[in-house]
């Protein structure tokens, strides 16, 4: 078997396993987990809101590490730098997907339980900032001059990453509207053991989906880079023929 065939086969198996995990996790979250005492069925949004939020604080680090690799390698080893850049782009897109889901599910939940769609407390504000930073990262890549965009984006990525630990710590450092951490928050926090399978499976399923998106988008970007290089090569060859 050719290498690309093996890769395609693994991707297909991964995709099918991911779909299975999502179906099972959805069943647990919506039908199996018990109804919560203080909020009722609305609390089930927790099984989507928290995993998405966790993932939107993990993928930025993939983007950061890939961006640092790009910055280090861009002169020494431009071809490898391009690989790092493709990974950085893919990770930023997945970050935007999950942070959007986190914000939207959070607003729906907030409206139902707090009575408001939005408030400017530390957690919500720093999370909106995270979303804006990675959206601006993607816009910068689209709008900056060719040849400059990778470097500019990689530098922006380093600065955007500062916000990630701030979002994580916001409910630990500061008083706000958002509840304090459910996990590891001390007394009067935590979820009932009967809710743990629904939570664990949703984290796993959405993490698998995130990894699938990341790898798929990375492969797509690698193809785009290859075709861009081919086009450049053809253009150079064509110009040489005219010169003769």
């Amino acid at each position, binding site marked *: 078997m050719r290498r690309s065939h093996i890769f395609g086969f693994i991707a297909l198996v991964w995709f099918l396993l991911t779909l299975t995990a999502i179906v099972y996790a959805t069943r647990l979250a919506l039908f199996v987990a018990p109804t919560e005492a203080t*909020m009722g069925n*609305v609390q089930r949004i927790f099984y989507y809101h928290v995993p998405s939020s966790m993932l939107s604080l993990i993928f930025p680090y993939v983007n950061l590490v890939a961006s640092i690799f790009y910055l280090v390698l861009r002169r020494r080893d431009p071809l490898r730098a391009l690989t790092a850049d493709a990974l950085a782009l893919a990770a930023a897109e997945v970050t935007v997907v999950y942070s959007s889901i986190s914000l939207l599910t959070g607003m729906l939940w907030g409206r139902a339980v*707090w*009575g408001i769609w939005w408030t400017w407390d530390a957690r919500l504000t720093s999370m909106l900032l995270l979303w804006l930073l990675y959206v601006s990262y993607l816009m910068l890549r689209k709008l900056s001059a060719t040849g400059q965009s990778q470097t500019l984006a990689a530098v922006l990525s380093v600065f955007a990453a500062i916000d990630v630990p701030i979002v994580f710590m916001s409910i630990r450092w500061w008083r706000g*509207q958002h*509840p304090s951490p459910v996990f590891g928050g001390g007394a009067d926090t935590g979820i*009932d053991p009967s809710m743990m399978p629904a939570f664990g499976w949703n984290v796993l399923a959405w993490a698998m989906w995130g990894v699938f998106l990341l790898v798929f988008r990375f492969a797509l970007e690698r193809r785009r880079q290859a075709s861009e290089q081919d086009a450049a090569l053809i253009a150079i060859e064509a110009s040489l023929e005219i010169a003769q």
Partner: protein
Amino acid sequence: MRGLAPIKIIAATLLVLATVGWLAYTGVRDTKSYYCTIGELSAMGNKAYTRNLRVAGNVQPGSIQRAGTGASFVLLEQGRTLRVNYQGAEPPPDTFKDDAQALAVGTYGRDGVFHATQLQAKCASKYAPAKSGEAPSGNTAMLAPAK
């Protein structure tokens, strides 16, 4: 010179990172402004009457008197009480009931009554299964002591 360039960039980056982190941390730590407790409200002195504030507490059971979309009730926090008069465009949220954790947004009057224009609920970080057939209870846990 070319060998020094990355070190300069890294040093400058670290400097910016540290500054932003420090500003964010100390800035919000010093103000803690999202809401105040009833104790902090009474310790504020004259400033309490001139600012738009958010006060947190638990609704004293039996104190809610509704009138149209408005309501009047008493907030409790660490043994302290605060009378709140809510007049807003929207009726109080469903989660607003006896013992519930609530935030009242508005101004503190010299009459000792807090005039709220908005009510928000706070939700818990502890989830337990409901007993079968029971309606959601709302967050009736006592507000955690101020940090």
